[in-house]
């Protein structure tokens, strides 16, 4: 006769450590990032984020390959883009990814009422939003920072990267700062759009529409109607990347630069980020949570 038996452990009390508010924020940010990337979700949820990330990294992989296989004289003829110029190749991927991530992170919690459960935990509305913003920033970093870091590392290993550890570190810091700034602006704008509706599709469409309309209208106003240059400050596609160019020290020398000063570009981006963040905060402050 077997000695096997079913063991009923009953209910176990827990008196171990609890991580409190910081643990709650960390968990929420990680869970939201996983959700945005489709991890631990059906295959259909993974397709779009994986595709966006692949598109963002594809040019970097091509350039790394070119650097590895093309003769040095061709490379020295500026065949490969500079780091700030790389953004030009992946702007569309970043914008599409931006339009997808924040709605995925923010809208479902309101739509299915999970927000009420989060607010019954150590989180409150402010810490909930901070966690979500950190999550969106982190995920956007995959496409705003990751490809450039990949380029830097690959170029360095191939011997066509920066000269010496100091230059390497300086470039790495610039890449991270530029990527973080671009992520911050787009995270706040897409979070603002996502806070206005609990439907992901509407929020995504809203983000893309907002960016495209701002870009088209300002381009027409400045270039066709000869409006003042400061109108570029309302171009939500150009401004974050212009700021990134300034971080790399390229600024006004770039071919597609708006010609605005660093202070103007920085001020415009800060203003957009602050305004969008304030909108989200007010929306959630007034939100009646279903419980």
């Amino acid at each position, binding site marked *: 006769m077997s000695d096997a038996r079913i063991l009923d*452990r*009953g*209910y*176990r*009390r*827990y008196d*171990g*450590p*609890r*991580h*409190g*508010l910081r*643990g*709650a924020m960390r*968990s*929420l940010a990680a*869970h939201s990032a996983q959700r945005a990337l489709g991890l*631990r*979700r*059906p295959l259909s*949820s993974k397709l779009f984020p994986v595709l966006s990330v692949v598109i963002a990294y594809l040019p970097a992989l091509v350039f790394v390959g070119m650097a590895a296989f093309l003769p040095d004289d061709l490379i020295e003829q500026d065949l490969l883009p500079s780091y700030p110029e790389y953004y030009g190749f992946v702007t569309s991927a970043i914008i599409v990814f931006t339009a997808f991530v924040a709605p995925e992170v923010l809208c*479902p919690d309101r739509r*299915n*009422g*999970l927000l*009420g*459960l*989060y*607010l*019954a*935990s*150590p*989180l*409150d509305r402010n810490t909930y939003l901070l966690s979500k913003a950190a999550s969106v920033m982190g995920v956007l970093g995959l496409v705003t920072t990751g490809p450039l870091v990949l380029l830097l590392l690959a170029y360095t290993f191939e011997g066509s990267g920066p000269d010496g550890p100091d230059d390497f570190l300086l470039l790495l810091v610039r890449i991270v700062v530029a990527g973080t700034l671009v992520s911050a602006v787009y995270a706040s704008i897409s979070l603002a759009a996502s806070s206005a509706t609990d439907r992901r599709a509407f929020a995504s469409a809203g983000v893309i529409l907002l960016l495209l309309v701002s870009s088209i209208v300002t381009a027409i106003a400045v270039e066709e109607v000869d409006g003042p240059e400061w109108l570029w400050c309302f171009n939500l596609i150009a401004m974050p990347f212009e700021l990134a160019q300034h971080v790399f020290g390229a600024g006004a020398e770039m071919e597609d630069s708006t010609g605005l000063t660093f202070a103007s570009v920085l001020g415009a981006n800060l203003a957009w980020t602050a305004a969008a963040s304030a909108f989200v905060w007010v929306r959630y402050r007034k939100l009646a*949570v*279903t*419980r």
Partner: protein
Amino acid sequence: MSAVVRATGVAKRWGATTALDGVTLEVGRGVTGLLGANGAGKTTLLGLVLGLHRPDGGQLEVLGLDPAEAGPEIRARVGYSPEHHVLPPDVHAQDLVRHLAEVHGLPKREATGRASDALWQVGLGEERFRPIGTMSTGQKQRVKLAQALVHDPALILLDEPTDGLDPVQRDDMLALIRRVGGEFGIDVVLSSHLLEEVERICDGAVILAEGRVVAAGTLDELRGPDRGLVVEVDDRADVVADGLRRRGGEVTLDGIRLLVSGRDEGIYDDVLEAVTEAGVGLRRLQPATVSLEQVFLGLSSPGSKQ
């Protein structure tokens, strides 16, 4: 600390509407029912207990802390199962419960183990890796209960936990809640408008009406003192009644049924003698009880408010 929730003169207004009007109550250990019609102030009270709103007046203490000042600390030790279905359909039950355990402060490894345990405890052990959207209403209610107890809270707030369940599922859920409040040793506040549920599993109850506490206490206290005996005979109930009156009893006659007032133990002997003397058969002999519904209706009737 015997009271897990203590309110003194708590008031809360939403604009021109007074949701709670000077609520004073104590919620003790075990399972406590929070009763009241829609709009009575139950959900507002739960929100205050969780520290989600600040009271406009009065003092509130939950687990010995002031929720207005220590909301996150209290919420870390309180489990909450909301009334509405609030579960993401495309997430596995195990993943959601584990995540909410982490959000309540448990380390990842412990959260994973306890999520499995909690889902087993509510009877979803075999179903824990199913997406929640594929589950029945009863299973979803169990997932909500599992997420409320996964982090081993000191207090669980359950808002209409049997909403949408069929009678069998409802019985199972009530038995489960009774286990949580008894065997698991977690204090439970059960918000419900179903008096029968509260009567079946609660140790005490708080009855709210229009933002005021109209009654609170153990179920025995709410039902009031012993109302005597119900006696049912097969014939000649009037003769039995006369016999009881001769023995000093107060008797109300209703067909073949008699309500004999008094709590003296000798009342049983008096009934036995009166029935024997009348030569009739005894069909029923039981203490006269008052249901919570009778208490509630009595308190809710016009002019009965305290």
